[in-house]
């Protein structure tokens, strides 16, 4: 039985293929089309999933779309009705799209799937799950838990913005929902917009900016914007928001409340934006904490599963773990809408078809390495065709040569095995660096990633070593939990430095691993496991043997605004367009100084800023 899940037509379209309950493949369309957050029908991602399973579209038993378009349309219409005539500017933009395209999504899907099947129209089973059902299914069914509380939080799906479900065996029983326009995700997005970042992609920048600020607006937010109840439910005062009726997230009342117009994109960041970021982060954490306590009381479960865009807020996740409300937490690595494709497929397998679910040690995500891999022969052929100069080394020599480059503080492009599913690079498509280097963060931000200097980097650490460096001793394979660098590893700032605020904090080395220690000593940890990524684990082991440090900087293999690289050519282009000094693809090792000069390019201009 093969089930193809699809998410599309909003942002981050993706496909996932489940075969007899096993997750065979999952990938986002943007990785193939090279268009960040590509919302179009994921034809290339589907083709990849089919090739991974060795089947064609005609071998698929069910196709499932991750949300219900009519329900979404109902929400739009009822919202316009409730706010008429103020919503006209939004109506004028939304309606043409709906009337021309989105209302016909079922027909569009059948036609697009038909093209892949070599038919006029796909005439097989086409199902639809609800948006938050897809998220909840993506959180619970691949988790290692037989039963758990399941919390989903995002901007908005159809009506639902937050849901609590009780997952057990092959079922999800929904216990409570919060509906649009009351949304934690949209509250966070409003501040993303107000602080000058792009909605739907800049939220993690706000999270990264928060530690530079003080939450001096938190009480203002709680007093005016959000009525947060003890059970975690909440209501947003729409007087302060513009997303129901207009084309902006915030209203003039919001600007009056916080003392000014939104920051213009790319304008210099001030302490005010940092304080705003810190404030909305604190409020979000409080809401998540209350929701979790309620979830524990309602379900009686000791484990929690999370999904939805808000579940990518790894700072809140880390605090949730530390609060000890639940014994264990599992977060879907593709917690955003892309993961809805996977959740929809799993929902059909378990809930619609009633298949038996068994759990085992570890989750069912295969480390989230669910995308394409390239055989060594193919890598060599493709790199040669791109004009690259490389040498082919043994496994042993690839590792030792990479360890040497890292120890010399070189930035290394590392492309190995299957591509990751979800927004984080986990050692399959990563740029690596020496976490001990005091200059690495600045160098990677400005010369490799071409992104804002305040942005932190995340550490990869062997699972066995995590507790020696950070204050957590749990699996965090998907970089979705934040912990603090251990006190014993910190370098204590002298008194004048302790008086620094905001961006000035950036230049103070804070620990033995300064490149991955944020200004509040926090770090977004990825634990590396031998079972799911033996090659990366081996690299860390050898790096530890050489330097005494089992931690590396791990950032996604891309520049600002670019989707993470997918194939060897993408990796080579990014390598040649940035100041990455070494590229390792499979067993091919490439040195920058040996590459043809004419293949170097001004790369960063190729992508729209995110």
């Amino acid at each position, binding site marked *: 039985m093969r089930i193809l899940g699809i998410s599309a037509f909003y942002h981050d379209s993706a496909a996932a293929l489940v075969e007899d309950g096993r997750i065979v493949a999952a990938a986002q369309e943007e990785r193939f089309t090279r268009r960040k957050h590509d919302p179009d029908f994921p034809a290339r991602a589907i083709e990849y999933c089919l090739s991974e399973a060795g089947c064609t579209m005609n071998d698929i038993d069910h196709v499932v779309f991750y949300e219900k378009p009519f329900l979404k349309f*109902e929400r739009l*219409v009822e919202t316009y*009705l409730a706010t008429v005539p103020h919503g*006209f500017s939004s109506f*004028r933009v939304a*309606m*043409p799209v709906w*009337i021309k395209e989105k209302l016909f999504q079922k027909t569009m899907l059948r036609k697009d799937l038909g093209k892949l099947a070599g038919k006029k129209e796909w005439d097989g089973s086409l199902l639809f799950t609800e948006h938050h059902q897809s998220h909840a299914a993506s959180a619970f069914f691949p988790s290692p838990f037989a039963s758990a509380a399941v919390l989903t939080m995002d901007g908005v799906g159809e009506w639902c913005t937050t849901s609590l479900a009780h997952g057990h065996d092959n079922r999800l029983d929904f216990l409570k929902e919060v509906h649009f326009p009351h949304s934690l995700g949209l509250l966070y997005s409003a501040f993303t917009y107000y602080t000058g970042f792009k909605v739907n992609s800049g939220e993690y920048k706000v999270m990264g900016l928060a530690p530079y600020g003080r939450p001096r607006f938190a009480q203002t937010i709680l007093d005016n914007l959000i009525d947060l109840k003890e059970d975690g439910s909440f209501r947003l005062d729409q007087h302060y928001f513009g997303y129901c009726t207009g084309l902006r997230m915030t209203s003039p009342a919001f600007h009056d409340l916080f003392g000014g117009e939104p920051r213009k994109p790319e304008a210099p960041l001030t302490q005010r934006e940092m304080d705003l970021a810190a404030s909305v982060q604190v409020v979000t954490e409080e809401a998540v904490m209350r929701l979790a306590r309620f979830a524990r009381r309602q379900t009686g479960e000791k484990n929690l599963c999370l999904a939805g865009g808000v579940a990518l807020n790894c700072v809140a996740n880390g605090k949730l773990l530390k609060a000890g409300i639940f014994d264990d937490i599992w977060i879907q690595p593709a917690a955003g809408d892309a993961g809805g494709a996977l959740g929809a497929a799993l929902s059909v397998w378990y809930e619609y078809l009633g298949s038996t679910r068994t759990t085992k040690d570890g989750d069912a995500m295969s480390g989230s390495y669910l995308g394409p891999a390239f055989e060594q022969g193919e890598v060599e052929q493709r790199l040669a065709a791109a004009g690259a100069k490389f040498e082919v080394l043994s496994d042993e020599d690839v590792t030792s040569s990479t360890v040497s480059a890292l120890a010399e503080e070189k930035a290394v492009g590392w492309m190995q095995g299957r591509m990751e599913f979800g927004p984080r690079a986990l050692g399959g498509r990563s740029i690596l660096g020496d976490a001990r280097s005091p200059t690495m963060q600045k160098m990677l931000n400005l010369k490799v990633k071409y992104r804002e200097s305040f942005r932190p980097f995340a550490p990869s650490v062997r699972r066995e070593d995590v507790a020696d460096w950070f204050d957590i001793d749990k699996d965090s394979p998907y970089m979705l939990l934040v912990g603090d660098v251990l006190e014993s590893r910190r370098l204590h700032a002298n008194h004048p430095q302790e008086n620094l605020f905001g961006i000035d904090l950036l230049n103070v080395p804070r620990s033995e691993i300064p490149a991955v220690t944020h200004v509040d000593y926090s770090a977004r940890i990825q634990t590396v496991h031998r079972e799911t990524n033996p090659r990366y684990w081996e690299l860390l082991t050898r790096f530890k043997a050489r330097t005494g440090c089992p931690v590396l900087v791990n950032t996604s293999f891309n520049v600002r605004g670019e989707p993470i690289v997918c194939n060897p050519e993408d990796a080579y282009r990014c390598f040649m367009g940035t100041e990455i000094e070494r590229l390792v693809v499979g067993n091919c090792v490439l040195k920058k100084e040996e590459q043809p000069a004419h293949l170097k390019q001004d790369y960063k201009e190729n992508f729209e800023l995110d």
Partner: protein
Amino acid sequence: MDLARELLSYMGHRKKYWLLPILVMTTIFGTLVVLTQGTAVAPFIYTLF
């Protein structure tokens, strides 16, 4: 026609037949917006509402 049938079936399932006149009006306005693709239709819509 398929779409109309599906919408009717959907409203029955959701017990939201009251949406029908609103959907009809929305579709008319929406179509006007599509056809005019501009702001000229705005006063007309405000008057009707």
